[in-house]
């Protein structure tokens, strides 16, 4: 059974339709990239998957149940999102931020126990953030903050991890580290990863499947080689590109023609 199942989803902000009759299914333990030009509905789609927005018509099934029927806490145990950026008004320590990822697993009157702290510690170890656990979140660099937010999402122990441009602030080393970590979690814990990106090569190299969105509709969906074609990119992004094969992986590689 697919873990994410979108059935004829339509969505509009006020009168402006942003998503029309979108259907797709994502199986457990897949890595899926969502690409598309600005305003094509990528972030909206992520919000519908994690139940922050509800479709006007159609159904979004997560783990077999409509997102409207899960409670917020239940859905947060299944789906975690790493946002692009968060603003911080009050000072919190990095470790406190990661600890917040445990919220969906706790009841109001319970304190975090050893297990929660262990999970937080592991999440911070994996994201290379232990070094600044006791530093204030708002004093970290953008890349460091992003890693802390990734750690928080991991501490939620989700089945599905949503990433909204989560690698943009990471330097090369941490980008590689993060992608390796994703694959590792993907194989070891059957984690499903859905990431939104503007970096077509990143999508082509790392995703099992790619969803190409174009003005609120799915223009193409499938394996990287099926979606990343010069014709598709020309049609959707209105730019000329050269597609060849990455000599290392054999996956499609895109070069912008100027």
């Amino acid at each position, binding site marked *: 059974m697919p873990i994410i199942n979108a059935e004829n989803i339509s969505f509009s902000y006020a009168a402006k339709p942003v998503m029309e009759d979108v259907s797709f299914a994502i199986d457990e333990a897949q890595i899926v990239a969502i690409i598309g030009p600005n305003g094509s509905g990528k972030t909206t789609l992520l919000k519908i998957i994690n139940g922050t927005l509800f479709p006007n018509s159609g159904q979004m099934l997560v783990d077999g149940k409509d997102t409207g029927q899960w409670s*917020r806490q239940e859905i947060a145990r299944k789906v975690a999102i790493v946002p692009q950026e968060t603003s911080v008004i009050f*000072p919190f320590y990095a470790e406190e931020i990661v600890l917040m990822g445990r919220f969906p697993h706790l009841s109001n009157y319970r304190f975090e126990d050893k297990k929660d702290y262990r999970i937080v510690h592991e999440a911070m170890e994996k994201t290379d953030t232990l070094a600044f656990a006791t530093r204030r979140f708002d004093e970290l660099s953008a890349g460091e903050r992003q890693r802390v937010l990734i750690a928080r999402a991991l501490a939620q122990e989700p089945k599905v991890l949503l990433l909204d441009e989560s690698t943009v602030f990471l330097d090369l080393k941490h980008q590689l580290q993060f992608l390796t970590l994703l694959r590792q979690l993907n194989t070891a814990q059957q984690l499903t990863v859905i990431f939104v990106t503007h970096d077509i090569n990143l999508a082509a190299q790392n995703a099992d499947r790619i969803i190409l969105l174009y003005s609120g509709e799915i223009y193409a969906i499938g394996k990287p080689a099926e979606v990343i074609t010069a014709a598709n990119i020309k049609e959707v992004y209105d730019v000329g590109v050269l597609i060849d094969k990455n000599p290392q992986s054999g996956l499609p590689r895109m070069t912008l023609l100027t």
Partner: protein
Amino acid sequence: MTIVFLVIGAVSLCVGSVHIDFDHVLRYLAKALKGNFAITSQEELIIFSVRLPRIIFAGIVGASLSLGGVIFQALLRNPLADPYVLGISGGSALGAIVGIVTGAGSFYLGIPLLAFLGALATVFLVFVVAGGTRGPLLDNSLLLSGVVVNAFFSAAILFFLSVVNSMELHSITFWLMGDLSRASMEEISLTAFCLIAGFVFLYAQARKLNLLVQGEETALHLGVNVERTKQWLLIVTSLITAVAVSLAGIIGFVGIMVPHLMRLVFGSDHRLLLPAAALFGACFLVVADTLARVVLTPAELPVGVITALCGAPYFIFLLKRKAP
């Protein structure tokens, strides 16, 4: 900090227009703790029927206002918010003034009741103006409509001040500046009950508050039912602070300063912040009220004057020290 509060309370019992020795105070307290409530001397009378209730009341009001500050700052995601921003001061002041002017204040609990109703009606009004009945609340709209409603009420208060006679003017002015001496034993018990019940509820929400200050969307992602949580927090906090304000009058700076100060010392985790702010707020207001009693002996200053006089410079000092 509980110990600090008890020590401050005991010291505060000694001083006043009639000085009572510290060891006498301790002796009387020990006697009362043993269950002997018979009042045998004038000193005991002063301690138990004048100063002790007042100190307890000051503590409760200080704690209520500080808690209110913590919650409103978190809800509005604005470190400058306090219970008054949402119109609790303006509304209850207007209610009280109407009470004083119309003579409704001569009834039992007349003025506090009107002040309380005024405060609640205003919070409701602010909520409606901000569009809270139509859909999700935006933090800024709540803050802005609070400012607007407050400005309107200030104008209304000024209008009343310019038309009343001098007797009424005096009692209005005293009310506006905060006065902890009028509360009766029943009123004190009532505020204590509200504070304790409210605190138990709020403390259970501490982790949610931590998530809310990260932004509503983040809170939603991490599993908080944001709208319902916000509404409950708003209701409970408004109740606690409206009760305190309606009986004590307007005491500025406590609700904005104490949460800030505690955040600088203890960080922003609400599980620590809520109790710390409540206790420190209590200590702070007891000290301020004691000063208000002794500075101009035998006359008294309104406690609001003391809190603002101490609060403002200290606040500036903290901001300066914090700046790099």
